Each structure stands twice: as C-alpha cells, then as structure tokens.
C-alpha cells in the first residue's frame, strides 16, 4: 500500500501520553481517507452524548492518500470532531500545506483527546512529538502566534494549525488557522482545540510519500494537469477565484441579501470579482495545486488578507448590507486573526442587524455599519458586551430572544451564501447535509439555479442531491478540492496509481455512499431525526423580495415529499435512520456493524 503512511499519531493531553498506531488497511479500502476514516474513528472512539467541549471528544486531523503527492489540488486535509455549534458530526476541510506536512512527518493523521492542565502546543517532527508550554501564546491572535512560532530557531518554517482568542473562549463557530492564512472554518473546531487547552500544532516533516513507478507517475500527472486540471471548465479558479460567483449569484438572484430577505444586492458591483481584482496583491495556491484560486488582497488602509472568498463576500457583504470591498478585507482579516468563521460571523451579524431594525431586540447594529461590525467581531471573540450574546450562534441566540422567524440555520449551522428559495435543489442539500447547512456536501445550485434544471421544482432533486453527496463524500476523503472536477473514472484510476489498491468507478461511488452513511449513523446516535433535516421558517413562509425567485417560497409539502424520496433512495427508514441490511450491503466493516447491533441491544 503506497500513498498512505499507514500510521496514526494519538495524543491524550490529559495523561500526556503520545502513541502511534497502525492505520487499518481495511479502512483505507472502505473509507478511503480524510473524511471517511475520520468519521470511522469518531464512531469507534467517541461515545454517544459526549460533550463536544469535554475531554472525551476527539479532534482528528486526517489526510487522504493523495496528500503530499503531486496529484493536483490534493493538499487539503480534514478536521473531524463533534461540533460544539451543532452537536452533530463535523468535518471541515482546510488547504495550504499542513496536510502534506503530516504525511512528510510520517503520519496519515493525528487524533487528539483529553485536556491539558495548562495551555500547550504540540510539536511534531517526524517521530519526535512533544507537548510544549504555550502560556505565552494564550490570548494572542493567529497571525502573531504563527509569527512567534516561525521566529524560533527550533520551530522555524514549521507548518502550523493555530486557534485565536475565539477558540480559547470556546466560541462555537471559532475556526482553526492553517499556516495562518487558510481556515478550517465552519462548525467550531477551534473551540474544540480551545477546550483542550491546545493553542497550536506545529509540524515539520522530512520523510517522503511513495508511489509505485515514480517516473511514469510524474509523466501521468503532468499530462492530467495539462489536459484536465488546467482545462477550460476549471480556469476560472486561476483567473478569478471564488469571487467570480458574486456576479453569477446576483444575476440569478441567489445572492443572500439583508439576512436572506432578498436575492439581489444593489451594491453587488462593489464587492464582485472586479472589486477584488482592484485590490489584488498576488495570486496564491495551496500546495501542489496548479489552479491557485487564492488571492492576497490589500485594502487601501494597508490590510493584507488571503481572500475575501465568495462565502465571506456573500455573508458579510450583501447579507449584512456591506457594499465595501475594503470593509470586507478588514472584516476578513480580523476574523482570521481572532479565529472565527467569516460565514457564521456574517450570518450572526446579519441576524442582529435585522433584529435591531425590526425592533425585535436592540443589538445596537444596523445593516451596513462597517465599523460596528468590526468592533463586534472582536467582541464575539472575547465574549464582551453584546458579543457574549452574538457568540451563542444564530440558533441559540434566536431561541434566547424569541426570534426564530428571522434565524437562518439548519441543525444550528448558519446558512451559506446561496439563497435556497432560488434553488430548491440547494434547499434539499442544506436540509440533509451532515454538518448542518452546507453548500459543499452537494452543490445542487450549480445544476438548477446556475444550470439547466428548473430551480423551482423538487422533481429530480433527490436523485441529484444523493449523487452529489456520495461523490463529494468520496472526493473529500481523497482529498481532491472542489475547484477540480475530474471524472469518476480519472479519480478511480488516480487512486489505484497512488495507493496500488484496486478501485472502480462503481466502487468509488459506493465508498461515497458508505461514508455518507457513517455520518448519518453518528448523527442518529446523537439524536438527530427526520425533523432536524429541515429548513429555516423564513425559507418556507416568506416570499423572497428580489431577483429571479422574487415572490417565491420553498413549498413545505413538496420539500417533505422530496425528503421522503431521498430517504427511500438511501434505504433509510421514514425517520431517516439507515436500515441495518442496507448498511451491510453497502459494505460497512464488520466490527462497526457489530458495534451498531450492540448499541441496539
């Protein structure tokens, strides 16, 4: 077996025990890597009902077989844990060069449990793993912490995973900064690190990742890069990056605006790709990626950030009525520094703005107030004043002040940057995503709102969403970035070339379905049921104000029917629980099946 290191690092911060264990080969063939194997570890290690911020919860940094190789867009790594924001399973992907560095250090992944008695950071250099004092770093921002680690001779040029004050203060939507400029953003993985008193992980690896027949492999990849990755359907990532989507979303009326009341934003032109280009400093790529969708931008006041990406622009820009690219760059940088998710932060600010404007509750902030937004970002991270309330997240805060009607979330995770009333496919995808409202599990909008399918019907959407969820579950386990869409045939071939293990197109999709079922099993165990696969009341009840979907709502009965259809396709029961015979048929491994049967008894 090549590609994989075959070794996992396990660190218990309570007992300070550091150990390695073999990565089961059976898991590699059944669950591929990153997302799939991360989920499998969670099901094995973390008992039902575990407090996400308790020492029993694990945080798993898991790579896939492609990380560290020259396979295009393969540098991403999964952060898997139980989310403090949703209580559901969480998998957040992060790019940069940290994933490959884990492999170069000789590990497919690192599993961290327990809680250190005082702030620490973990330092990994090949087989030498130490738990270091981080008292001096506690309270510092992500950029300053990274600089501090880089400035020390012994950790010079180490790759880093760092939390900011938000993670330390257990904000449930705090992120982890990777190399300071990439983020495992959604779902509060930063708070899980914070709860463990783990300020950072620094990694330096000097080992290698092997594949069979290297000279031929290099020629093969060179060809794939030229003919596939760098072909027309992907080049927008190079020329524009994700901000390109702003104009598209505006055109098709799917751009979240003023807390998801409208589908078009009057100042979209001030925050689109051209606006980002006007502040462009340099293009930036993750490791081994020929597409390079990242952008260093510089605001007029000198602030430099990698971003803002589409999701940040949509949720903190149009959704907050902030039509200023410089404002977004400043917002982006501040969020990255204190360590909170730009998406959920944009969403909670928009919620507070609407609550204030409607007189539901006075949070002292109105749409478009840039300086106040920036102040609240810090206040959330440090849980100061109003920030203490906003740090609850939309779902908990709405319950507290009785404003569920203006809360836009699924399973506690705030909606991302695509208006579901303008894409019924996306509506179903949000409702059924494993970690709460997420566009990446199944980006159905690409096929209806932006594509050829009718966006205002659920017909055919269950089939589409299932297919996309399965495909992405498998892709997110390799990992291949969303920016590259190779055919399943190419991916299966790549898998075999890298690992030496057999893989067919059919088996790859089956792996995806298997992995998707793992997340369902975890969430089922945590008490998530049919009624949690739902959408916010606004999406069902309030017609959208502008754009192509103006006047439209998502019809509840058609949505329910589509959900039933999806469950049937997945061979789940009416409550959304996977049926044991279906799991067996899908090839879930025997020990897990036995464990599940034990749970039932």
């Amino acid at each position, binding site marked *: 077996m090549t590609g994989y290191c075959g070794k996992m690092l396990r660190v218990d911060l309570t007992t300070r025990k550091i150990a390695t264990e073999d990565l089961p080969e059976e898991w590699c063939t059944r669950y591929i890597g990153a997302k799939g194997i991360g989920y499998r570890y969670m099901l094995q290690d973390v008992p039902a009902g575990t407090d996400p911020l308790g020492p029993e919860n694990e945080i798993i940094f898991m790579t896939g077989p492609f990380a560290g190789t020259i396979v295009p867009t393969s540098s991403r790594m999964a952060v898997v844990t139980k989310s403090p924001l949703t209580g559901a399973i969480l998998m957040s992907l992060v790019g940069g060069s940290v994933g*490959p560095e884990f492999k*170069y250090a000789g590990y497919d992944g690192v599993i961290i449990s327990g809680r250190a008695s005082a702030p620490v950071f973990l330092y990994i250099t090949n087989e030498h793993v130490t738990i270091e004092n981080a008292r001096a770093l506690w309270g510092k921002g992500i950029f300053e912490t990274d600089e501090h680690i880089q400035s020390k001779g012994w950790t010079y040029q180490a790759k880093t995973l760092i939390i900011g004050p938000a993670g330390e203060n257990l904000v449930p939507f705090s992120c982890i900064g990777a190399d300071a*400029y990439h983020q495992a953003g959604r779902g509060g993985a930063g708070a899980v690190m914070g709860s463990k008193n783990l300020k950072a992980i620094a990694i330096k*690896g000097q080992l290698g990742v092997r594949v069979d027949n*290297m000279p031929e492999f*290099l020629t093969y990849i060179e060809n794939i890069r030229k003919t596939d990755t760098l072909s027309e359907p992907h080049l927008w990532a190079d020329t524009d990056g994700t901000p390109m989507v702003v104009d598209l979303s505006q055109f098709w009326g799917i751009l979240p605006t003023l807390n998801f009341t409208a589908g078009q934003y009057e100042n979209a032109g001030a925050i689109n790709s051209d606006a980002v280009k006007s502040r462009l400093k*340099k293009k*930036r790529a993750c*490791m081994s990626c020929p597409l*390079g969708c990242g952008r260093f931008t510089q605001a007029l006041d000198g602030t430099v950030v990698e971003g803002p990406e589409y999701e940040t622009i949509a949720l903190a820009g149009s959704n907050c009525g902030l039509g200023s690219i410089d404002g977004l760059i400043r917002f982006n940088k501040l969020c990255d520094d204190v360590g909170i998710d730009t998406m959920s932060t944009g969403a909670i600010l928009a919620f507070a703005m609407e609550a204030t404007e409607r007189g539901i509750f006075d949070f002292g902030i109105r749409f478009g107030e840039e300086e106040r937004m920036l102040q609240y970002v810090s206040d959330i991270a440090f849980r100061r004043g109003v920030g203490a309330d906003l740090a609850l997240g939309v779902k908990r805060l709405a319950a507290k002040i009785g404003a569920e009607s203006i809360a836009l979330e699924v399973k506690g995770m705030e909606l991302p940057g695509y208006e579901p009333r303008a894409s019924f496919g996306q509506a179903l995808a949000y409702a059924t995503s494993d970690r709460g409202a997420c566009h990446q599990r199944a980006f159905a909008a690409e096929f209806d709102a932006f594509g050829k399918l009718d966006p205002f019907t659920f017909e055919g959407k269950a089939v589409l969403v299932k297919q996309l969820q399965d495909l992405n579950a498998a892709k997110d386990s390799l990992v291949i970035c969303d920016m590259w869409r190779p055919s399943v045939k190419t991916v299966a071939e790549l898998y075999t070339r890298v690992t030496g293990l057999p893989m067919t197109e059919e088996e790859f999709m089956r792996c995806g379905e298997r992995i998707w079922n793992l997340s369902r099993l975890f969430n089922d165990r945590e008490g998530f049921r049919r009624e949690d696969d739902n959408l916010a009341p606004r999406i069902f009840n309030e017609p959208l104000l502008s754009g192509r979907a103006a006047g439209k709502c998502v019809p509840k009965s058609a949505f329910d029917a589509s959900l039933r259809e999806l469950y049937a396709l997945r061979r789940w029961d009416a409550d959304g629980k996977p049926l044991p015979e279906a799991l067996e048929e899908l090839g879930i491994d025997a020990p897990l099946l036995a464990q599940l049967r034990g749970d039932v008894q």
Partner: protein
Amino acid sequence: MTIKINDAICTGCKSCEVVCSAAHVGEFSPERARIRVVNQAAVGESLISVCCVCSEPACVKACTYEACTKDEIANVIRIDYEVCVGCYACVEACPFHAGFMDPVEHVPLICDSCGGDPVCVKFCYKEAISVG
C-alpha cells in the same frame, strides 16, 4: 542553459519542490528538494531559491575537498558525492541561499538541472521557473 526564476508570478504551490524530490530521490519529500519556495504570507510574497549557476560560484571556491565543481559545458554545479564529506561549506557560502542540506543522506543538495530538462519547469504552470 540556466534556470530562470520570477518570484513576482510564483503562487507558492511548491510543485517544484515536490517533483524535484520525486525525480531525484524517488519519493515526494520537499525537504530533500534542490529548489525551495519560501512563502512569506504576512507580506503576500513567495520567494524561489534555486541555483542559477554563477559565473564565479562561491560554492566551488568554498569547497576545500574539490567535491564541488562547475561543469562549464553543461553550465551546472556538480557535487562528487564520493568525495564530499558533508561539511556544507558550499551551502553556507551561497549568497543566494540556493544550496540545501539533505536530512537523510546528510549531503548538500544543489540543482543539477536534471541533465538539461528540469522537471520543476514542467510542473510550473505559471512559468515562474523557466529555462533560458
């Protein structure tokens, strides 16, 4: 031929490091590459370091064992690993920081231009590294 670099268009993807190690040591191991990219994220820059073959190379002068020589015909720095004692005088002497230390074999690593067809150039889609 010489390898030319243009930091201004480098995206910092390090494909060059990854394939350089693959071509020379048979595995993906950037720490063993003969080219390096340093990403200075705070200022949004990426800097490429690779041997561009000086007319009067400091590395050759620094080597007291005559292991490090300049091949004038192929225009490349050569290290005779049979003679090299791994003192890294050549690496330290390079004013461009274009020599590196192999953490496994404990010998200096300097670009050998892959015999005239550099693999890094093939994988640099931005052409930040080119052959001139």
